[in-house]
């Protein structure tokens, strides 16, 4: 996940490089965490298959690029296709289960996860593939500390959160989506088509996941297993920021990315960095159970 830091005489420079590398992977975690938060806002569920769906989208993008499409056209076509796939999954698999026990739905998510994983290695093979970055290596915004791709990743994630935030905050559709998630019964009485809102939420999450996948792929290379670690970090990021808060997801993503990188290079080495990062995150959650920016929900009995 981490770009290997060149050996430098200057300790500070190495540190800064690690820090920025962390911010950049953090941007990716943030994007996927955002997808998780989206589905949570729209449905109050967490989609365990989100990472694998993103991986699948990235493979689609790769196929399109191999077919000779220019990068940015591929980018938008993939986002659109991913939107349709995710909305379709909601319609075909998740919607019929709306009365099923919660754990049964979790198992359906696990089923989706293995299906997408297996489909990808079946269709595209499990050899590792290279995926291009949209940001040229010698772009003006690159520097000694951060590669253009890293800067680009952070920029794209920030744009995403701005767009989503405005969507949920300032548009009627966004308001309806939030309402449908919070109180489906009352929303229905007010004439909101709840089912359609859920589908839209899934579609958006699928699209965001596709963006995250295409940003990760140039760094970790493209293979069916590329998202499993990323999903875990994204999940942690979403929770540490507060699962109901898109801005929290972004903050959480950057925190987790930086933490992972610094712990990995300074404290325990790559072997245990995942463990230590997770333990720290759980530790934070025990102190602040609703996440850093999450609201504590007070229930009337």
């Amino acid at each position: 996940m981490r770009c290997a830091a060149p050996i430098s005489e200057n300790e500070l420079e190495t540190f800064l490089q690690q820090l920025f590398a962390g911010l950049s992977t953090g941007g990716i975690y943030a994007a996927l965490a955002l997808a998780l938060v989206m589905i949570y806002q729209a449905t109050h569920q967490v989609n365990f298959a989100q990472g694998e769906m993103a991986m699948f989208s990235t493979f689609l993008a790769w196929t399109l690029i191999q077919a000779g499409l220019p990068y940015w056209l591929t980018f938008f076509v993939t986002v659109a296709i991913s939107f349709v796939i995710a909305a379709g999954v909601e319609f075909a698999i998740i919607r019929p289960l709306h009365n099923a026990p919660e754990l049964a739905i979790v198992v359906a998510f696990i089923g989706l996860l293995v299906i997408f994983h297996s489909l990808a290695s079946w269709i595209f093979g499990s050899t590792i593939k290279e995926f291009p970055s949209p940001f040229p290596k010698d772009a003006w915004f690159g520097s000694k500390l951060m590669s253009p791709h890293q800067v680009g990743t952070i920029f794209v994630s920030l744009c995403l959160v701005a767009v989503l935030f405005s969507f949920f905050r300032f548009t009627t559709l966004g308001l309806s989506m939030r309402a449908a998630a919070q109180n489906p019964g009352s929303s229905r009485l007010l004439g909101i088509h709840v089912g359609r809102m859920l589908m839209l939420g899934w579609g958006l999450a699928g699209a965001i996941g596709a963006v995250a996948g295409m940003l990760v792929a140039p760094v970790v290379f493209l293979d069916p297993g590329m998202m499993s670690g990323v999903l875990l970090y994204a999940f942690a990021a979403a929770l540490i920021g507060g699962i109901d808060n898109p801005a929290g997801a972004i903050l959480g993503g950057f925190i987790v990315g930086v933490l992972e990188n610094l712990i990995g290079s300074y404290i325990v080495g790559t072997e245990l960095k995942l463990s230590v990062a997770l333990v720290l995150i759980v530790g934070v959650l025990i102190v602040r159970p609703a996440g850093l920016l999450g609201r504590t929900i007070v229930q009337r009995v």
Partner: protein
Amino acid sequence: MSAIQQPSSITTSNAALHPGRGGVWLLVLAVAAVTATFFVKGYVLFQLTMLLSYGIALVGLSLLTGYNGQISLGHGAFYAIGAYTTGMLIEHAGVPYWLCVPAAGAVCLIVGYAFGRPALKLKGLYLALATFALGVVTPQLLKYKHLEDWTGGVGGIVLMKPEAPFGLPLSADQWMYLFALATAVVMFAIARNLIDSGSGRAMKAIRDHDMAAESMGIDNSHYKSMTFGVSAAFTGIGGALSALVVEFVSPDSFTMFLSISLLVGIVVGGVGTLWGALFGAAFIMFVPAMAESVSKDAAWGVYGVVLILFVFVMPGGVMGLIARVRAGR
């Protein structure tokens, strides 16, 4: 994802154990299980023994998730701790194998309690993440090079299968199966009694409405962390048996996939039912192999489709279906 509240829709789980029809079924099951020792051979006997081991582990998870409403995505960790406790006690201390099984339970009880206590603050998704972390961290710790002297590192520990005692005319495999069967009977009986006791009612009350339970004078913190401990102990005993049966423990046997399989197992069997554990164990034991025989290339795809179909057809698991059929009669 708030607590898991639906299982109460499954009509009371102890129907299967009530005298009458349930008692007959139990007798048939017991006779079949004992006679299997002498008629089933080789790999199938091994599979049956593993099924019992998974069954005990699933009862543990069922106590926690089904009866107490606390989700765990990391119970594979306790399975691993149970297996490693057995492996290390035999390898480094020469403890007899039959003592290792309760010892594994005791170790997991303590570890589970120690984990459950701080995890009290976490609910639903947050608890899922914390337990997930446990499931991810444990195999990494078992591999960790500074613990290698104890755990055997990546290579793990190789064990010997115990011979039948008292000169009984049984092969080691048959004896192991009977030993697992006896352990399973004891553990199921303990679980049944626990569920029907005052503590069991307290556990269920907390699952159904924690605040109401608290105001009735139930000590939520105590019961929840204790359930975590007991649940871990069951799963650890399952793990200890698996170590004896497989004659080998290694970090790669206890990946995240095991934890997820265990969760799948209780849902397939029926959340909040005791006997569902056996159906769940059969599912996680046999369905992956079946999927592979359907299509080698996309075995996991087939598995995923089976999972989703299962959830569509039987959202309450096998026991839910049985309850529905009975109610329809």
